[in-house]
C-alpha cells in the first residue's frame, strides 16, 4: 500500500457510534432543509448554519500553516492528472453552456439540472446531505491528527527533520 494511503488511513476516524449519530443528524437536517424553498428566509437560515459551522470548525481544527500532500513519484507518477483533466472538462462545459445563446433547457448547466432535482424534496434532501458530507470530509481531511495538536506529517521530503510542521 502506498505510504500516502497508509497516512490517509491513519487519519482520525470517528467511532462508529458517533459517526452514525452524526450521519443521522445530518440526514435529519437535510430533510428539514429540503422542506424549505429557495429565496426565503428559512432557506437562507438552514443553509447559513452549516456554512458558519464549517467556518468555525475549519478555524479550530485546521492548522494555521500546512504543507500540501505529496505522493511518492515512484508509486504514483501522475496521481492528480486525471482529476485535473476531469475538473477542467466539467468547468469548461459548464462555462460553454452558461455562455451559449438560447434557453437553459437547450444548454443545461449543473445549476439548472440541480434546480430540476430540487423540485423533489427527497432528492433535494439527498443533495443537501451530500453537500454536508463533503463539508465534514473537508474538515476531517485538512485537520490535525487527534491528540497531537499538530498537522498530519507530510509524506514528501522534509526540508529539515527537526523543524516541526505547522508551528509558527
Amino acid at each position, binding site marked *: 500500500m502506498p505510504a500516502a494511503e497508509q497516512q490517509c488511513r491513519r487519519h482520525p476516524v470517528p467511532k462508529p457510534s458517533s459517526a452514525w449519530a452524526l450521519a443521522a443528524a445530518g440526514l435529519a437536517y437535510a430533510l428539514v432543509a429540503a422542506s424549505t424553498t429557495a429565496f426565503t428566509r428559512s432557506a437562507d437560515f438552514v443553509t447559513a448554519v452549516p456554512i458558519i459551522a464549517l467556518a468555525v470548525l475549519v478555524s479550530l481544527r485546521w492548522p494555521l500553516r500546512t504543507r500540501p500532500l505529496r505522493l511518492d513519484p515512484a508509486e504514483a*507518477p501522475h496521481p492528480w492528472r486525471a482529476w485535473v483533466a476531469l475538473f477542467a472538462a466539467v468547468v469548461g462545459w459548464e462555462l460553454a453552456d452558461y455562455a451559449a445563446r438560447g434557453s437553459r433547457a437547450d444548454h443545461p448547466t449543473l445549476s439548472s439540472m440541480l434546480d430540476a432535482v430540487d423540485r423533489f424534496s427527497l432528492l433535494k434532501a439527498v443533495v443537501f446531505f451530500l453537500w454536508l458530507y463533503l463539508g465534514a470530509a473537508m474538515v476531517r*481531511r485538512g485537520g490535525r491528527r487527534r491528540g497531537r495538536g499538530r498537522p498530519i506529517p507530510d509524506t514528501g521530503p522534509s526540508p529539515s527533520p527537526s523543524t516541526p510542521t505547522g508551528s509558527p
Partner: protein
Amino acid sequence: MSSALGYAIWALLGLATFLVGARSRAAGAAPARPALVLRRLATGPILRVLLVLGWMWVGWHLFAR
C-alpha cells in the same frame, strides 16, 4: 445544438468521473483516490481557501439563492 447533446455530454462527464473513481481503487492505479484528492486540496495553502469558499458558494447558490 439540441438539449440532447448537452445532456449527453454531461452524462459522459459523469461516466468519466465514475470511471476515474473506479480506476483509482485498482492496485497500482495512476489516479489518486478521491479521499487523497480531497486531502491534497485541504492541505494546500491556497487550494484549501478556494475549497472552503467553493463549498460555501455551492451551498448558498444551490439551496438559498
